[in-house]
């Protein structure tokens, strides 16, 4: 027990450390910007006084480490600073959009995870059959498609030609839950198509890898039914890899929404990030990056901890 506790604690500590380093990188990345941010944002026409005033407003006259500490302390209190473009509080901007993004990712996850796991297990069971080959070719292709291609194909057929779903998913808080799901069904489908392939292939590989092990042969030689072999003998040992696959793809869902959000003009975090990047609105870019990185790290951390917890050798030490 102490062993496993130690390992989990270690991972959690490492995760925290990574978060810290990532915040440092995001901060420093901007610090290393060649030239003067204030000058660059205001343009060549600005007078020296306005630039100096702007620098003071940004806090650029302070040494970097002080600014970093101040930034971090503010972050921990939920204060991300103000947008350069429209002077609004960044936390305000983030609030609604983060939930929108998570909502979209959740809808996609609800569709894709069960689908991918079922397909993966079936493909592993009937490997080298026609079904397996067809699924293999289909998934290989859909992995290869750029997201915007899938998105536009879906728009072309389901929105423009058939008119079943809206091609632009503008959701707002007033809409009912059902209406929101309906409006974001196309972006969610796009994400599903992209993610399912990867998840399904990895599930299949994990299970096939396991089916070759001597204890599965032993189970077959004990005359057990195929279903029981999969459920009782293969699955408990395949948990760790499957958890990993799911977590990686969930993380991908949250991060991968950027392009889909742009295509469908979905009011999420990714859209905000891309807009801010083209406007060079640096505080917003920093904030968005940090939120994305945090989600990504936390999901990976969760996967790590869960796969430790599902290892029988660690759960039952000598």
């Amino acid at each position, binding site marked *: 027990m102490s062993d496993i506790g130690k390992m989990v604690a270690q991972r959690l500590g490492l995760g925290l450390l990574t978060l810290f380093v990532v915040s440092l990188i995001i901060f420093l990345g901007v610090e290393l910007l060649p030239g003067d941010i204030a000058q660059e944002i205001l343009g060549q026409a600005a007078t020296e006084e306005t630039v100096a005033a702007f620098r003071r407003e940004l806090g650029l006259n302070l040494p970097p480490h002080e600014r970093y500490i101040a930034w971090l302390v503010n972050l921990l209190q939920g204060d991300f600073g103000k947008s350069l473009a429209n002077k609004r509080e960044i936390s305000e901007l983030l609030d609604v959009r983060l939930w929108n993004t998570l909502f979209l990712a959740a809808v996609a996850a609800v569709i894709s995870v069960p689908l991918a796991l079922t397909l993966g297990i079936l493909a592993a069971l009937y490997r080298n059959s026609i079904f397996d080959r067809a699924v293999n070719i289909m998934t290989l292709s859909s992995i290869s498609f750029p997201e915007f291609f899938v998105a536009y194909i879906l728009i072309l057929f389901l929105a423009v030609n058939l008119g079943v779903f809206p091609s632009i998913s503008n959701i707002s808080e007033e809409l009912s839950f059902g209406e929101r799901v309906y409006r974001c069904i196309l972006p969610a489908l796009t994400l599903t198509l992209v993610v399912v392939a990867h998840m399904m292939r990895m599930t299949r590989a994990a299970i096939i890898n396991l089916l*070759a*092990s*001597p*204890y599965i*042969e*032993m*189970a*077959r*030689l*004990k*005359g*057990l*039914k195929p279903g*029981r072999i999969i459920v*009782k*003998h293969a699955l*408990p*040992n395949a948990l760790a890899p499957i958890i990993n696959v799911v977590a990686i793809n969930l993380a991908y869902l949250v991060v991968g929404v950027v392009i889909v959000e742009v295509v469908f003009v979905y009011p999420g975090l990714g859209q905000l990030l891309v807009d801010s990047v083209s406007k060079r609105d640096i505080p917003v870019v920093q904030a968005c990056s940090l939120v994305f990185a945090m989600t990504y790290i936390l999901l990976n951390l969760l996967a790590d901890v869960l796969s430790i917890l599902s290892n*029988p*050798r660690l759960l*039952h030490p*000598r």
Partner: protein
Amino acid sequence: MNAEAKTTAKTDGQSDVILTMRGLRIEGYADEVWHEIVHGVDVTLRRGEVLGLIGESGAGKSTIGLAAMGFARDGCRISGGQIIFDGIDLTKASDDELRALRGSRIAYVAQSAAAAFNPAHRLIDQYCEAPVQHGIMPRSEAEADAKDLYGRLQLPDPDGIGFRYPHQVSGGQLQRAMTAMAMACRPDLIVFDEPTTALDVTTQIEVLAAIKNIVQQFDTAALYITHDLAVVSQMADRIMVLRYGNLVEEGETRPIVEDPQKDYTRDLLAVRTFRKPPVDEPEGDIPLLRVENVTAAYGKVPVLSGVSMDIHEKRTVAVVGESGSGKSTTARVITGLLPPSEGRVLYEGQALDPTYRKRSKDELRRLQMIYQMPDTAINPRQRVRDIIGRPLEFYLAIRGEEKEARVRQLLQMIELDPDDFIDRHPGELSGGQKQRICIARALAAEPELIICDEVTSALDQLVAEEILKLLQRLQDDLGLAYMFITHDLATVKAIADEIVVMLAGEVVEQGPKQEILTPPHHEYTELLLSSVPEMDPDWLDRVLEDRAAAI
């Protein structure tokens, strides 16, 4: 209920034969073609009889064993013949019929119990699975039965051991637990697939005794598959000798062992009779290599404590011990891969640097090493020419035609035809040939001492014998000294001048071969010596009696 069915079957006057295989053919899939690997073998097994299947690797013995359950591994298929188990033709049976037989009436004991137990479940859960799933007995009954069987198989704490997970139990115990699991439904037939191959000799004897005992108690028929004739002669009533998927010879155990009819069987029997002629006492005071009071550890785990030994010029020192005894670690210390925490290694009286990185090229050259696994000891992407040529170029600066000539000469020394072999890749060589290339690579450096780390363990017995003879010839011709690390006492008897016996990182006994091999022995040496199976069908019973008497 099962037992009842069995008795009725017997009283019905059904035949005495439980399993017949007629003209069994099995094919394996390789290089996109099906190759036949078993060419029409006939097997007959009577109720309660133990039949030994013996052969070297590639003989098809495991494949035949699995076929007895109507099972073929992925990439194999049963392509012809009949497999009749108690009147049912397994080649024609449906999946459901086969499933009903497997585990309940035919059971299997795998080679590596550690891999064949599911790491996610406790031993007793895996035990109960077959009887409960086949509907033979309820879980509670099965559990009680398991504890009873664990006891009969002399497992420690039979009531509690089942509630442990596989990784919490030692290898020898796992193998017995697996035998118990196979017994769970009191099958008519058990297939034992090399059950003791992965075990140390002292553990092997316990497992052998347990298996023999339980098979006799329940009068179960068994197929006992192994490559070791001495082991099988303890276990089997009848023996079939196989080679390349064909039957060589078949007969009752005692006649086969005492008066074999075929040359191949005779070769197998003679395999442990090679003896090195005795040599003179070493001359001179300074040994070629001296290990002085070496203590070493991997991280914080101590593996060697106060090990000392001498190796004299032109002599063979055999270091013998079971896994974990520190014999290979001693070699790592000598070669400089593992710097010792205490003690030192002297070469001709001069201390060698503890790590190989700081040793001179000449020091490295004089001390060469040959490994256990020839498959991984030579780079599969290099040709024989480059493998043997590199030391010539590196140490002796021999290049061009001179190098080519020398490589050819070395190939001749290891009895391989230079024209045929010089351009081959390791993938085009057999295990024995690869080991010869390793020897040639070591010889190319013109060393004085060669460390042989279990060089024959991964090879078939006949091939191993040839390698030993080759090494001996090279020693006579070139005046090499060998440090011979092995767990196999037969090898020690064959090739050693001096013996060092190791146990748990310490030297328990060392001296000239005659002295160590003649009584009185050290207690552990005695245990080790008496555990080596002999080609005598009565050996196991005799040793067990002796040991019982001693207590």
